[in-house]
């Protein structure tokens, strides 16, 4: 096992996932503490554009694994490829972004590589003996757990989105292409198509700012107010379970226990009272704004900034103010 820290550099259609640059940040710190390199691994069909973007994050070395069969993600082909990269590089630590792909892939690769794994981590460090130690939310953010790793075994972690600032600065990484493993059984699983859902606005799990609405929006039509604000702030639009169940927004936009978990730097909850199941999906947001007529609502208690008022007046005013500010 070397002292290198390997980062799975997720890409789709040549676009590096923005969370990869975030993962490079703790990877650099761990590599510096252990005296190793940060090595990024790009897997796909056409990998050059993503490798260029990865180089700009300041990784020390880039490994690409390219094959036409890996144009779209499948758990089997990608686990074989990432496991091959691990066997080739023998890193001590492997980090993946806790994206849909990273969460799907990491447990398979960890099992295959005989590694130990912690998911959705928010802090990473090395203990006195140089072993990985992480901290992760449990019970939907109602508690946190410190997790230690065993000696002498590859340590893997998926890193929660929007937890670390993106790394930048660099272009000197050397590149190395290794062959895609040809494992016949991997063809059992194929991805036949990728269908866009939820329109062209950002997905709530990817956005750095989320504007979210509850049932008090009263109709799908009224969600336009939120989309206008989201447009100005380059935000994603989310909704409470009640709003989705009422048909105002598709379930793909639902934030909460049985919807998506989001960790943006800013979460603006419009007319969401804050049921515990909703809080479970957004409690990890850095800054929380509540816009609500009821100052006693749980969301107003949780919020860093609670705007007490009628969302139908406050939201358009906020859109106008944000426009003024961001025009400068």
């Amino acid at each position, binding site marked *: 096992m070397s002292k290198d820290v390997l980062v799975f550099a997720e890409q789709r259609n040549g676009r590096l996932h923005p969370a990869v640059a975030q993962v490079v940040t703790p990877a650099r710190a761990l590599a510096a503490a252990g005296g190793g390199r940060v090595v990024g691994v790009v897997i796909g069909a056409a990998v050059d554009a993503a490798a260029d973007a990865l180089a700009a994050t300041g990784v020390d070395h880039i490994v690409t694994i390219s094959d036409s069969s890996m144009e779209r993600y499948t758990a089997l082909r990608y686990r074989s490829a990432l496991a091959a990269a691990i066997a080739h590089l023998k890193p001590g630590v492997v980090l993946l972004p806790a994206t849909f792909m990273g969460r799907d892939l990491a447990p398979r690769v*960890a*099992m295959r590589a005989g590694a*130990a794994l912690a998911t959705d981590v928010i802090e990473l460090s090395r203990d006195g003996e140089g072993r990985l130690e992480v901290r992760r939310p449990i019970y939907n953010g109602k508690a946190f757990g410190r*997790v230690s790793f065993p000696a002498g075994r590859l340590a893997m972690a998926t890193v929660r989105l929007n937890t670390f600032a993106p790394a930048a600065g660099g272009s000197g990484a050397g590149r190395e292409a290794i062959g895609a493993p040809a494992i016949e059984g991997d063809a059992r699983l194929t991805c036949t198509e990728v269908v866009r859902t939820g329109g062209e606005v950002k997905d709530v799990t990817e956005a750095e700012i989320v504007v979210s609405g509850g049932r008090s929006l009263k109709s799908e039509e009224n969600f336009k107010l939120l989309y206008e604000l989201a447009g100005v702030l380059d935000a994603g639009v989310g909704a409470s379970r009640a709003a989705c169940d009422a048909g105002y927004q598709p379930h793909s936009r639902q934030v909460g226990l049985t919807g998506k978990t989001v960790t943006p730097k800013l979460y603006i909850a419009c007319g969401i009272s804050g049921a515990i199941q909703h809080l479970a999906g957004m409690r990890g947001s850095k800054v929380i704004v509540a816009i609500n007529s009821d100052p006693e609502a749980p969301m107003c208690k949780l919020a860093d900034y609670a705007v*007490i008022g009628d969302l139908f007046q406050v939201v358009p005013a906020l859109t106008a103010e944000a426009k003024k500010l961001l025009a400068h």
Partner: protein
Amino acid sequence: MKILVLIKQVPDSTTTIRIRPDGGDIDRAGVKMVVNPFDEFAIELAQQLREKRSDVQQITALAVGPAGAAEALRTAMAIGADDAIHLQDGAFETLDELQTAALIGAVVRDAGYDLILCGKQEIDLDSGQLGPALAERLDWAHVGAVTALEVGADGRTIEASRRIEGAEERVRCGLPALLTIEKGLVEPRYPSLPNLMKAKKKPLAVKSAADVPGFADLAGAVGGTHMHKLEPPPARPAGKQIKGEPAQQAAELVRLLREEAKVI
């Protein structure tokens, strides 16, 4: 077709989580335990497949956990499972997620299941490791976070959708396969009283470490993380209330987000 559904018993989502003074675990006294909601989707899906198709011969529910996990298995049998396997041993309690997957793999490897279903994650530890890790252990295909499913008429292939960022992946694979279930695919039913009564009479096999082939070597091969300290979430500083006319409120909020919170 033989279906296995993995069940975990977890604290109810509305429970107040208190951490023991030694930080080793949560205080479990008086905590209401339920079937992990995502696993409930899985058992419901299995039962719906049986109701729609003629080739589902058996649905088995399996749980790893202390004595109380038997309650969760009885619930699964009230919804649809024909029988249950309860892996219960003090030695299982220190296993981490990957080791638990290896344990289940050792028990189910030669049992002839065509489909294994489980929730996309467990709402206590929120790790989401079990399904994909077990599929790898068995060298099966898996589809994670499934939101739509069609099982082919021949019972040998499936087509499924899984949710990703702003899109859905449509995937196809042969059986056997493991699926982890996302919300929205099915709505779990409430078990009826007669079915709850019937579930008490269905067979539930308890297995200990001695019943698991190769258990002694299992923990040495993979996993081994240890959650050694639980901590409460950091206290959020008291928030600010912004009152006044909407235009003033909006201006003040934008100023605070820019100058104080520095997020826009």
